[in-house]
């Protein structure tokens, strides 16, 4: 089969799009590519609207190549990709809500992010006024004897983000789960349009609070790619250190939280202590527990001093001392294993089809990790393994996290040991012409894609951020089928998809 470059060569190549190529294609080729994605030739990385155009990012997984194809749609219509390839469905519904771009043949024409409460329609498109009264949302029907519906959320009993889940169940056995998201739409992409680069990266860091570093990194890398700027080596390594600390904190938290949902609070308590240790170390080293706004275009805003290095080394030593005991506790508690093994199984075929990233994909045999597959610096110079399991159940997703904690601890050690000296930041100057850049970065829950177009004055004309959750939320609906109602929280927590990052 021809490579991604050959495919893009059939379209009209767009200049000044870095680091991967972008090509303009016609509707016929757009449809052909959609069919090829459905056949598994490419993995869909993202699909987003733009003014009068729609972009689609593709990944050639074996080759580790990325490319973007663009279809101009002056009439505001484009052939639906979701008709061939279901994972594009919500992306297209979102593009229709935000830009008013109509996907022809879209199997599900209901709005997605737009709940009819914004006061406008198509906020990034024509901004037509609309009444903010909300609109009824018809949920998909499930018919059959003794089926009943359980509506849950968007306000939950625990302190979690808002999302609505509509279960159709027969007694305890789940027949269908339908999610409705969009409750935390903040209009980040709208706020970014016209914003200065520094401000845009700050906004990106607020897309999903638990992945603040990953988002800021993705946005900064995309901008640097567009402007052909290389941040200094020390900054590149410090960025990776922050990203690994963020991954550690979240994985510690998640391993405990999954166990807590099985009422095994002991793991939760001990993992919570480790998570807190990571956050405090981050605070001591970089001045912010979540390291928010520490990654800036052109470099980093905080340096690691001698005391910080000691703090990090102490953290790694402590985690290495305590975590193995917790892993043994997890693995040795039969009542806990009884809950996690075999629960919420995601078939590898589905994970592949959806291009599921992060622990969701890697627990179901999809060995994609942006740090390895796209080898962005400094990960090309660091040694680490990408754990992959085939089982796809809750237990496998916990184990992927456990293995990744071990890898991250080793990465942190390598980074601290090999941290180059030098400047922290280079000046970012506008290019006096429109530029486009993109980046894919591995956040703790999967790959984050950032694509942006800079105007000639260096402000952001359009920025799109795609969370890994876009391809994980639909899979949660799939794994829940045939499970029991009471096991949903466990499956949900093992996925731990982002609401905020998805609703944007």
């Amino acid at each position, binding site marked *: 089969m021809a490579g991604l470059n050959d495919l893009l060569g059939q379209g009209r190549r767009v200049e000044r799009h870095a680091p991967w190529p972008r090509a303009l294609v016609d509707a016929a080729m757009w449809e052909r590519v959609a069919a090829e994605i459905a056949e598994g030739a490419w993995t869909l990385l993202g699909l987003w609207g733009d003014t009068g155009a729609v972009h689609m990012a593709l990944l050639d997984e074996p080759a580790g190549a990325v490319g973007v194809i663009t279809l101009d749609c002056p009439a505001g219509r484009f052939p639906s990709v979701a008709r061939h390839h279901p994972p594009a469905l919500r992306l297209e519904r979102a593009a229709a809500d935000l830009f008013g771009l109509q996907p022809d043949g879209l199997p599900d024409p209901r709005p997605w992010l737009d709940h009819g409460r914004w006061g406008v329609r198509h906020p990034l498109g024509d901004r037509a006024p609309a009444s903010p009264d909300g609109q009824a949302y018809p949920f998909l029907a499930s018919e059959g004897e003794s089926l009943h519906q359980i509506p849950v959320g968007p306000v939950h009993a625990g302190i979690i983000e808002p999302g609505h889940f509509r279960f159709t169940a027969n007694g305890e056995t789940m027949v269908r789960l339908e999610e409705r998201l969009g409750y935390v739409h903040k209009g980040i992409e709208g706020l970014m349009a016209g914003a200065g680069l520094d401000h845009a990266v700050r906004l990106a860091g607020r897309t999903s609070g638990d992945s603040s570093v990953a988002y800021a990194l993705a946005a900064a890398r995309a901008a640097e790619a567009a402007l052909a700027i290389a941040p200094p080596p020390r900054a590149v390594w410090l960025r990776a250190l922050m990203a690994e600390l963020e991954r550690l904190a979240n994985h510690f938290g998640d391993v405990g939280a999954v166990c807590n949902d*099985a009422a095994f609070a002991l793991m939760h308590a001990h993992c919570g202590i480790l998570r807190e240790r990571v956050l405090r170390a981050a605070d001591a080293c970089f001045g912010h527990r979540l390291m928010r706004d520490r990654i800036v275009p052109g470099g980093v805003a905080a340096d690691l001093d001698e005391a910080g290095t000691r703090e990090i080394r102490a953290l790694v030593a402590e985690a290495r001392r305590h975590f193995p005991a917790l892993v043994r506790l997890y693995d040795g508690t039969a009542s806990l294993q009884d809950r996690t093994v075999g629960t919420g199984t995601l078939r590898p075929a589905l994970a592949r089809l959806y291009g599921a990233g992060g622990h969701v994909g890697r627990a179901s045999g999809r060995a994609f990790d942006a740090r390895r597959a796209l080898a962005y610096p400094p990960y090309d110079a660091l040694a680490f393994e990408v754990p992959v399991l085939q089982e796809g159940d809750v237990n496998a997703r916990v184990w992927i996290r456990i293995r990744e904690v071990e890898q991250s601890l080793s990465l942190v050690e390598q980074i601290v040991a090999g941290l180059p000296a030098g400047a922290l930041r280079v000046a970012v100057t506008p290019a006096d012409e429109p530029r486009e850049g993109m980046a894919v970065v591995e956040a703790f829950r999967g790959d984050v894609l950032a694509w942006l177009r800079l105007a000639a004055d260096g402000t952001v004309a359009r920025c799109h951020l795609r969370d890994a959750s876009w391809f994980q939320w639909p899979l949660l609906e799939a794994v829940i089928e045939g499970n029991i109602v009471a096991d949903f929280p466990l499956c949900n927590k093992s996925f731990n998809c982002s609401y905020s990052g998805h609703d944007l």
Partner: protein
Amino acid sequence: MIADLLVQGIQMLLVLLLAPLLTGFVRKVKARLLRRRGPPVLQPYRDLLRLLRKEAVVADGASWLFRVAPYLIFAATWVAAALVPTFAPGLLFSWTADLIAIVALLGSARFMLALAGMDVGTSFGGIGSSREVMIAALAEPALLLIVFTLALLAGSTQLSTVAGFMASPEVGLRVSLGMALIALVMVAIAENGRVPVDNPATHLELTMVHEAMVLEYSGRHLAMIELAAALKLLLSVSLVGCVFVPWGLAAPGAGAAAYPQGIALYLAKLAAAGVLLALFETAIAKMRVFRVPDFLGAALMLALLGTLLLFVSRSL
């Protein structure tokens, strides 16, 4: 006669006053085991007071049943808890302290709660009631079989008699009693909605059993239900204590001086049970809903075997 009535009154008040303390104590021990400081032991009293002062918000579709149920549940549970000898057997009303009566009182309270859960018509109430009844369908027969084992041995279902028999030397070491004890503990865990059957501390609507049924309750109604739940826990501990650890009960006619000693020993029993419960709950994860019948099935089989063994041989 007046003195007898007084002692009976003390017993009734004692269980009512101690019930929230036991709940608070278990929470505290659990928190300490998780390296948390935990709320004060007296917190359940404050919670009850707070709930009593608050307005009771009742759902639109609620019938009279929804409003009456909390009081009936509380009354039935209180009476049941007060019937179990705590510090002294042979009290004034002890002739009513029949094990089958206690099972029936608890069953009635549960029946009311399940009805109230479904009354408002929310999906969570329905889920909770359905799960509760599934659990009850196995827990109640198991409890009755345990009662039969004890009754066959002691020759009576009356708790004072059973406790007296269990404290006497003629009881000996019996397999059937061991089985009955394990079964009783398992049933008590299920009845009280503790881990691994239910998680009293969960915030996950979809996994709740007891909490799902009472989600719509607030104010004084909720206070009644919470107090009833605390009483039920106290009752279960008292029952195990009175039947299987009957030592230290003030003997009938021993005089007023024996009572403080009985009460002190009773408190020690409660504390020991609280620590054991907290330890057990910390060491185990909650089971899948569909494993609960297996768990209670085991309790039922143990109780059944205990009963059957007594027919095979009087000495087992």
